[in-house]
């Protein structure tokens, strides 16, 4: 048996009654009671997530913007306001998705990058390999000294200011998808729930006290179970489920993050131009009773597709899914999903399914 990795909040989760699970080799809280209650807590008030397993990477040096312009499918030139963030896929030359990540523009010598936990090591290895060829003077540093907590929900920002009053002045004016470096606390108005809120990066040794202070201020801990239903309702991809190295961003609902129009070259661009997508990611709403799950087959008039993420939506009180289907399937189409020994009726819908406390599907 392998030993699970733990975050600095492991003892706090156990003290708060979390049910712990093996999440990609990390010992993480799946819920602290009811994951549906936790879901509503975030949509209606606010909650906090341990995201210390995610990795912060700092890319520093002259020419960092030009390097990221080449490294990523989205265009780093889009962010010029200090602190502004950009979501992007990082591709192999064949167009496969290595990871999806967020970059923050801090200065022309410093971009901060946040990558997924399960892909962090290969991401950093890839970045360093590319930097060696294209930007040998850059330093790419894995910030293993930092922890990260996401505080999400309509009341999240106010709670963070209550606990960290010194950060308020610098973070009050942040736009959505913008961060401020407040010394020990790096505060970003980003998240993975479809709600307002912050992601706070801070020294590892301070995170447990921060977690308990937030809890004392009335912020409930939220497990990975609710994190998954929140992000699915918000129409946000999960790496490893909705995309991976075997598919491209255009088959993964990420065309809006890929800039193919400008002259800019980037890793994977030639492959994307040479191979127009034959499938795409759509939303499904289950009309029959039951629950959609990953890997169920989706039968459409244009051929068979597959669910990549499926669950029960606590906001809509119906089952929803993301599915990869033939590209000519249209919003509003009726499809059949094979669930065990039955074919269940579902409708192709535009996603996100819910954001900012409200369902978006009729």
């Amino acid at each position, binding site marked *: 048996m392998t030993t699970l990795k733990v975050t600095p909040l492991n003892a706090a989760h156990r003290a708060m009654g979390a049910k712990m699970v093996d999440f990609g080799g990390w010992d993480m809280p799946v*819920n602290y009671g009811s994951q*549906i209650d936790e879901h509503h807590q975030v949509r209606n008030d606010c909650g906090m997530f341990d995201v210390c397993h995610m990795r912060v990477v700092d890319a520093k040096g002259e020419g960092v913007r030009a390097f990221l312009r080449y490294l990523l499918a989205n265009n780093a030139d889009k962010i010029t306001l200090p602190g502004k963030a950009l979501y992007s896929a990082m591709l192999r030359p064949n167009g496969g998705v290595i990871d999806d990540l967020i970059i923050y523009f801090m200065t022309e010598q410093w971009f901060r990058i946040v990558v997924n936990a399960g892909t962090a090591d290969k991401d950093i290895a890839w970045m360093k390999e590319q930097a060696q060829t294209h930007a040998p003077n850059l330093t790419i540093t894995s910030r293993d000294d930092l922890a990260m907590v996401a505080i999400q929900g309509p009341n999240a920002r106010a709670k963070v200011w209550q606990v960290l009053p010194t950060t308020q002045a610098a973070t009050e004016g942040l736009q959505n998808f913008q961060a401020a470096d407040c010394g020990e606390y790096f505060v970003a108005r980003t998240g993975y729930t479809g709600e307002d809120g912050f992601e706070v990066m801070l020294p590892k040794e301070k995170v447990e006290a921060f977690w308990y202070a937030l809890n004392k201020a009335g912020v409930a801990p939220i497990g990975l179970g609710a994190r998954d239903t929140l992000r699915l309702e918000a129409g946000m991809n999960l790496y490893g489920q909705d995309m991976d190295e075997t598919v491209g961003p255009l088959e993964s609902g990420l065309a809006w993050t890929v800039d193919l129009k400008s002259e800019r070259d980037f890793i994977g661009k030639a492959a994307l131009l040479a191979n127009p997508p034959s499938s795409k990611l759509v939303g499904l709403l289950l009309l029959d009773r039951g*629950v959609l799950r990953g890997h169920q087959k989706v039968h459409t008039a244009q051929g068979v597709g597959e669910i990549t993420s499926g669950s029960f939506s606590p906001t809509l009180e119906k089952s929803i899914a993301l599915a990869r289907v033939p590209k000519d399937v249209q919003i509003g189409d009726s499809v059949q999903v094979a669930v065990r020994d039955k074919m269940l009726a579902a409708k192709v819908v535009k996603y996100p399914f819910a954001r900012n406390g409200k369902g978006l599907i009729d």
Partner: protein
Amino acid sequence: MSNPSNLKYTASHEWVKTEADGTITVGITQHAQELLGDMVFVEAPTAGRKLKAKEECAVVESVKAAADVYAPVSGEVIAANADLDSSPENINSDPYGAWIFKMKPDNAADVAALLDAAGYQAAVDSEAH
């Protein structure tokens, strides 16, 4: 919550209550509902269906996962709990009250041979290791 001593159990986490008329009522245990978490859908067998012992006959789905429910003994289904169509969460709040289906067993002796509360607890404990 301990497992009621007046019930019988299976290693696959069903509880079985023998009624006065010899029929049995079947649900899933406290341990099972806790593992699955918030219940959102129950598909119970229809009355009249003949079941063999250990046959998959119902499905309970939580937000997290789907799980099969097995026939504890051979027999015929005589009723399904329609309340669970609209309130599957009753399984979480009251696992030993929120029954899933009722059966007429082929042999009463098969029911008597199921695990008692202590035997079930031992099975759960050994699963955890």
